[in-house]
């Protein structure tokens, strides 16, 4: 009971290993080696077993027996080379990989304070930009791998879940069920996915059971979410007080005429309403936002024998958005069976149904921020009495929603901020001229919910035909049934609006058959792997919409009670898309040092016209593991050094279905006597012209990489550089509107992406009771248009007439507009400038002063120039993990540097007036009071949206996530008969720093819809939701 043991721990090269953890198994006794690798441990029992462990090395267990001296040699685990990585249609050892593939193991992804796996990956992988464009619960983030590889509408990466390419895979995969995420970044590794690989590939592998005793795992977490920041909105009275103060200042300046220095009666009346009639201010943002609850429950059972293994899980997640009526609920089940049917046959079955229920608010946050504060949400006794004075509204009651019209068309009189009394006399005033209902009543009168029922089910059978030769056949089906009801109550958006229920039923069926032959053979120092395959995928998309109108009661919303059907919005559509592919790959390695791989894929697609259907996508790559060379063995500090190089061709076919023909749409017309009888009419699409010659977009990419591990994996890093060129860009191109259609499909030009990615992991401290690991990544991507067919540039108008330039030699998208140089201070300054212009509202004192770029003395369209671009200079993430005894802490900083946005908020004049970010106190008031000379008077002058005044820096740095955990000690658990118990707390966006001059709420936000939703129009935002800040607590138990 009192044995003493001492000894030395060395590595394979004979070097002493300090800091190795030495523990007596099953007891609390332990120590670690000193600087010379020596240890000494006493108080051991006779049957003691010592466990030696060190990160990056295989643990060693030795029973002490009668020994008192014990020398131990530890082997490197070499996880850098032996880890299995999932690649297209198979797996490879990390050491054999020659492309740019990143594996992200799910260690704490499912503890990230977000609802979806793509959000959890933000900032964690170099070269993968994940952008939360909306804070709505359950919304899809925007994902770009190595920049924008394509110009058409589909620059999203291909997502493959357990071998099945699923367009919306990231939306339904349950983070807790994910084993690992692999990202195929370069063309060589993505080329095996051919026509869909150009924007990169994300492979999701879900968990499987292991041959072990049945293990149960329960996880639960709960927390709250709220807005990180809000707009600073002036109340009506503060705004009107400011107007009066300004008017007083302006009055002292002779350049301002009395006519131009009045506070309009609408604002005066609004002031009286807020101060005297309503007697309070409404914070409309609070009417939209809430502290939301989030909850996540996960259960799973796994285990099995050598021949049958299973993994069964169930999960429930409830994620409320910070805006009312924004909610996301997810139920997941996963059943996975892996069986050996005899010696030569393996069968895998995977069934994962999920149900997602999502509710979306029926009105944008912006509509709240724009509503004026004098306007109450509900009427009280006093305000109702006031409203009833107008005979039109004689029957409104206290408790009814207040509406703008209740205060319109009335006379007002009362006290003004300057103490004077004002009366509108006999003329009537509209304090708030709008025909819209107020936002809270709109929000509450619309229910916009969708249900997604998805099943991904697959079975595959692998037959070992000959030694080394396997045939695998996989059949899989992905079915997504979406049904939703968008129900709007009576009087929702406008008074007298009829109630309306839109029923959507969509069915998406994707069938995949995949057949591959796989041959591997090693002889002498040669190692071969050959893959050949054939796949066919058919997708059927059926949509049905039925719109019922005029329901007798808002309480019964089923169609049977609807009085009529909205014929225009009642239809079904159906389309089928097919993809036929042949693929092959060869891997060869010599002596485990020299690596060679080549792949080829041929895709045939129904997206293109006969003659253009087939595309060919080859790739080749090489690798050299330098550290395995004998001459490197003596370099002790170098653990791994690997060089990689690759070249590949990938494609992109994601355009609308059948862009090669002009589709016809109904355009009926009433003819005949009376009110007419509807005759059937057909016209081609009003939105886009077809192009019969449309064909594949192809991306050619070079990648060079370096994998290095130093000092027994204490430091490891990967560096990749790449250059790609995309040709025959599938372009949704603006056409001249006199063709009759504003856009057309085209294949023109080429685009280059270049970048560098760096990922670093350091094990700063690895002691038995204290570990500190840092991982960091940073990447930079630049793109450049190399050609645009016969043209040198394209211009695209955004939804607020702001302009986007696509110019040869420049980045894909640049903002185009007028440069400004502060504001015109006075009429004199305008006269002195001697500039002329035919543009509207250019020469107004207090308005933006446009710069005459070409110095021709004339302000015209030739003075428009590049005023920014949406692309960050670099994006980065930095994660630190600490472990002290049972405690752990990890925090991730993440950011983006250098991109810009066009802030569309000032398009709304309401925002110009009451948002303190735009209506600042240092704005121009008069020639004598020019403020800072930079800020325009908000009603004056040139349209801001066409100038650099709305271009803002979108850089940010965030404390994206923090996770703190405590794992109960093993001894205690043993007594409790538990496997493991862990408590944790996590937080998201505790800190979010935006650039100076950014006036919005979320620099990542992007909003463009309809015809503006194209990669050629990028970086525009308006009325974004605030960023979420969240905090939650969780527990994780397994037994």
């Amino acid at each position, binding site marked *: 009971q009192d044995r003493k043991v001492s000894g030395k721990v060395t590595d394979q090269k004979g070097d002493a290993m300090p800091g190795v953890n030495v523990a007596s198994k099953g007891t609390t006794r332990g120590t670690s080696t000193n600087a010379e690798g020596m240890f000494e441990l006493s108080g051991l029992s006779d049957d003691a077993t010592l466990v030696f462990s060190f990160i990056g090395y295989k643990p060693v267990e030795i029973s002490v027996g009668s020994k008192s001296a014990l020398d131990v040699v530890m082997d490197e685990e070499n996880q850098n080379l032996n880890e299995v990585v999932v690649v297209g249609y198979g797996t490879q050892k990390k050491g054999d990989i020659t492309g740019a593939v990143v594996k992200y193991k799910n260690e704490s992804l499912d503890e990230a304070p977000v609802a979806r796996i793509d959000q959890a990956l933000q900032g964690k992988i170099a070269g993968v930009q994940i952008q939360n464009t909306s804070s709505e619960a359950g919304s899809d983030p925007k994902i770009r791998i190595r920049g924008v590889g394509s110009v058409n509408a589909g620059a999203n990466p291909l997502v493959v879940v357990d071998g099945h390419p699923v367009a919306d895979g990231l939306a339904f995969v349950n983070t807790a069920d994910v084993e690992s995420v692999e990202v195929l970044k370069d063309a060589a590794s993505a080329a095996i996915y051919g026509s869909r690989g150009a924007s990169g590939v994300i492979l999701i592998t879900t968990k499987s059971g292991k041959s072990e005793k049945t293990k149960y795992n329960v996880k639960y977490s709960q927390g709250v979410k709220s807005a990180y920041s809000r707009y600073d909105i002036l109340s009506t009275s503060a705004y009107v007080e400011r107007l009066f103060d300004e008017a007083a200042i302006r009055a002292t300046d002779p350049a301002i005429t009395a*006519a131009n*220095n*009045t506070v309009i009666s609408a604002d005066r009346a609004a002031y009286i309403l807020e101060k005297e009639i309503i007697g309070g201010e409404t914070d409309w943002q609070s009417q939209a936002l809430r502290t939301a609850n989030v909850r996540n429950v996960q259960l799973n059972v796994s285990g099995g024998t050598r021949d049958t293994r299973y993994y069964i899980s169930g999960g429930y997640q409830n994620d409320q958005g910070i805006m009312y009526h924004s909610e996301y609920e997810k139920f997941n089940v996963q059943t996975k069976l892996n069986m050996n049917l005899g010696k030569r046959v393996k069968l895998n079955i995977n069934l994962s149904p999920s149900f997602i229920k999502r509710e979306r608010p029926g009105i944008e946050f912006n509509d709240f921020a724009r509503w004026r504060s004098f306007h109450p949400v509900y009427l009280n006794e006093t305000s109702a009495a006031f409203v009833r004075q107008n005979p*039109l509204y004689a029957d409104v009651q206290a408790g009814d929603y207040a509406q703008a*019209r209740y205060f319109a068309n009335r006379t007002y009189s009362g006290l003004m901020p300057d103490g004077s009394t004002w009366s509108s006399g*006999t003329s*009537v005033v*509209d304090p708030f*001229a709008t025909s819209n209902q107020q936002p809270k009543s709109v929000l509450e009168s619309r229910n916009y919910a969708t249900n997604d029922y998805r099943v991904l089910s697959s079975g595959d059978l692998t037959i070992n035909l000959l030694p080394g030769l396997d045939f695998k056949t996989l059949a899989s089906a992905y079915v997504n049934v979406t049904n939703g009801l968008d129900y709007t109550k009576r*009087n929702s958006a*406008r*008074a*007298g*609006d*009829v109630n*309306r229920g839109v029923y959507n039923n969509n069915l998406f069926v994707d069938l995949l058959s995949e057949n591959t032959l796989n041959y591997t053979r090693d002889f002498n120092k040669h190692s071969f792997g050959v893959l050949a395959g054939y796949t*066919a995928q058919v997708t059927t998309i059926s949509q049905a919409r039925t719109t019922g*109108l005029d329901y007798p009661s808002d309480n019964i919303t089923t169609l049977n009670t609807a009085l009529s059907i*909205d*014929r225009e*919005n009642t239809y079904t559509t159906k389309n*089928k898309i*097919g993809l*036929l592919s042949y693929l092959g790959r060869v891997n060869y390695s010599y002596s485990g040092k020299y690596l060679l791989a080549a792949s080829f894929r041929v895709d045939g697609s129904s997206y293109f016209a*006969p003659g253009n259907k087939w595309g060919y996508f080859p790739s080749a790559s090489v690798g050299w593991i330098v550290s395995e060379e004998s001459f490197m063995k003596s370099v002790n500090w170098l653990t791994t050094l690997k060089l990689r190089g690759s070249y590949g061709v990938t494609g992109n076919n994601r355009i609308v279905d059948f862009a090669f023909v002009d*589709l*016809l749409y109904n*355009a*009926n017309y*009433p003819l*005949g*006597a*009376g*009110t*007419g009888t*509807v*005759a059937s*009419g*057909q*016209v*081609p699409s009003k939105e886009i012209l077809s192009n019969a010659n449309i064909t594949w977009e192809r991306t050619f990419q070079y990648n060079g990489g370096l994998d290095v591990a130093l000092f027994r994996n204490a430091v490891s890093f990967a560096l990749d550089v790449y250059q790609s060129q995309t040709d025959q860009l599938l372009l949704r191109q*603006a*056409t*001249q*509107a*006199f*063709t*009759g*259609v*504003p856009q057309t499909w085209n294949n023109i030009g080429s685009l280059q992406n270049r970048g560098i990615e760096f990922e670093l992991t350091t094990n700063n401290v690895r002691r038995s009771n204290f570990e500190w690991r840092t991982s960091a990544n940073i990447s930079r991507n630049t793109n450049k248009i190399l050609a645009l067919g016969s043209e040198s*540039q394209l211009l695209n*108008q955004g939804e607020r007439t702001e302009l986007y330039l696509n110019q040869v030699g420049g980045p894909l998208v640049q903002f185009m507009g007028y440069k400004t140089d502060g504001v015109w201070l006075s009429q004199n300054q305008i006269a002195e400038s001697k500039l002329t212009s035919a*543009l509207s509202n250019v020469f107004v004192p207090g308005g933006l002063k446009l710069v005459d770029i070409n110095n021709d003395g004339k302000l015209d369209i030739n003075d428009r120039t590049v005023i920014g671009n949406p692309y960050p200079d670099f994006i980065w993430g930095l994660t630190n993990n600490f472990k002290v005894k049972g405690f752990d802490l990890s925090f991730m900083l993440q950011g983006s540097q250098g991109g810009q946005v066009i802030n569309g908020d000032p*398009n709304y*004049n*309401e925002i110009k007036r009451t948002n303190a970010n735009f209506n600042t106190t240092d704005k121009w008031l008069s020639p004598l009071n020019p403020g800072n000379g930079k800020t325009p008077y908000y*009603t*004056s002058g040139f*349209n801001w949206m*066409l100038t650099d005044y709305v271009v803002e820096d979108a850089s940010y740095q965030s404390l994206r996530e923090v996770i703190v955990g405590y794992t109960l000690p093993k001894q205690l658990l043993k007594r409790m008969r538990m496997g493991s118990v862990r408590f944790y707390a996590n937080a998201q966006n505790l800190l979010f720093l935006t650039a100076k001059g950014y006036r919005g709420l979320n620099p990542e936000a992007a909003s463009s819809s309809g015809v503006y939703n194209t990669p050629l129009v990028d970086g525009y935002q308006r009325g974004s939701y605030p960023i979420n800040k969240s905090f939650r607590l969780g527990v994780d138990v397994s037994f």
Partner: protein
Amino acid sequence: CEKVIDLYPQSNLNTGTYYSTVDEVRAGLTGAYNGMQAPLATEWQLTELRSDNSKQGVPASSSSTNRDLSDLDMFLPATIHTGIYTYWLTTYNNIRNANIVLQRLGVVYDPSAGTLSLQNIDIAISDTDRKQLAGEALFIRSHHYFNLVRLFGGVFLVHTPISAQEAKSINRSSPVDMYKLIEADLKTATTYLSPAKFAQITGANIGRANQWAAKALLGKVYLTLNRKAEAATLLQDVVSNSGYGLQASYASVFSISNEMNSEILFTVRHKAGGLGLGSSFGNSFAALNSGSTIINGSGQGLNTPTTDLNALFNANPKDARKATNIATFGTGTAARLYVPKYLSPVVLSNDGESDWPVIRFADVLLLLAEAQGFTPESIALINLVRARAGLTALPSTVNSVATFEQALAEERRLELAFENHRFFDLLRYNTTLTTIKAVDVLKDHFAAEYASHYAQYPAPILTLPQLQANVTADKLLLPIPQREIDTNPSLTIAQNTGY
């Protein structure tokens, strides 16, 4: 295997296979009738609003819709103005629809000769059918181009469906070339289209363009070109031989229970009932902040009558036309003007029944008077219109060219208010009349409305002289949408002077 990828659309017909039988071409033509609705949604902004008939309703409004309207109203439109672009796009979209029909029917325009000819086609179709369908499409095309040339000057002359690439080599044509096409189209239409008189038009032919509509439109084109004699001949033909005539009451012309009445030579039809064919004007024009008092789904108070026009109606209390054209919401000092002309009860917002007349008999009568000039016959024509409105004949003080012209212009203004004629009339008077100049009328209009409207804008307010200085002969034309110029880097496309 190839079956997997050898797929065609299952939910939509496509131009590759369609338009190969008479019925299919007819469906294409029906689509072109439908396509006449879209430009109307913005046409009033470019015509009534820029005339002295209407203004945007809320001077203090900060909404971008109202600000955009103000820019048009005050002759300050930017070259990127959304309303202008929307009108342009929807008009050209329907020109494309008409061109597809004409192409399938083998109707070919020779721009240098200014003539149309018929080519061989492989569609089995009778000559009568072919000409009838072609005539209707020609009418639709010329209607659009006539509007474009008056609003924008020489535009892009597209007479066949073109690809995006072909468009790159097309520059603007001169107004002369535009009118050459319009004249050729309408002349051909008058010979192709059925000569059936009003009472003989039955069944599904009701609502289609016919010979009389084409003649009336061509008459107006000639008058616009100051070819008064040719105009008078055509218009007189319509007045005497078409079988069309005035309704007994003004209100019944626009009644939804009396559609396609004897006064309607051509109208853009709408149909309520959730068919996607309803009219939006009931909601757009009803008073702002009116809740459901006037129409379900509230009004937006756009296209608000000017006080000047209201006063003109009020000058003669017997004028039966007032009630159809101007109504008030609220009473006393809260009374607010709006246009009830296109108001019909709706279940769904913007889904009204009211049609939008393009050419009606009263218009033809007055055009004929204008073409004839100051003659007793012309006075009689005006008096016909006045009598129907419940007014007495013109007084004897109308005894000179100047007084006649004033009386004629005033009669047209009242009779055809809010039917998008006034602005075009003012432009035409520059040449057809001697005493009325568009620019002067518009300047007077600004003066008349200044205190009650333009002085009520938030600062900075334009002074009256500044406002009036905006109205120049150049600015009577709209700018070519900037997008058309920006989208073609290979040609230099001239913008209209003044923009």
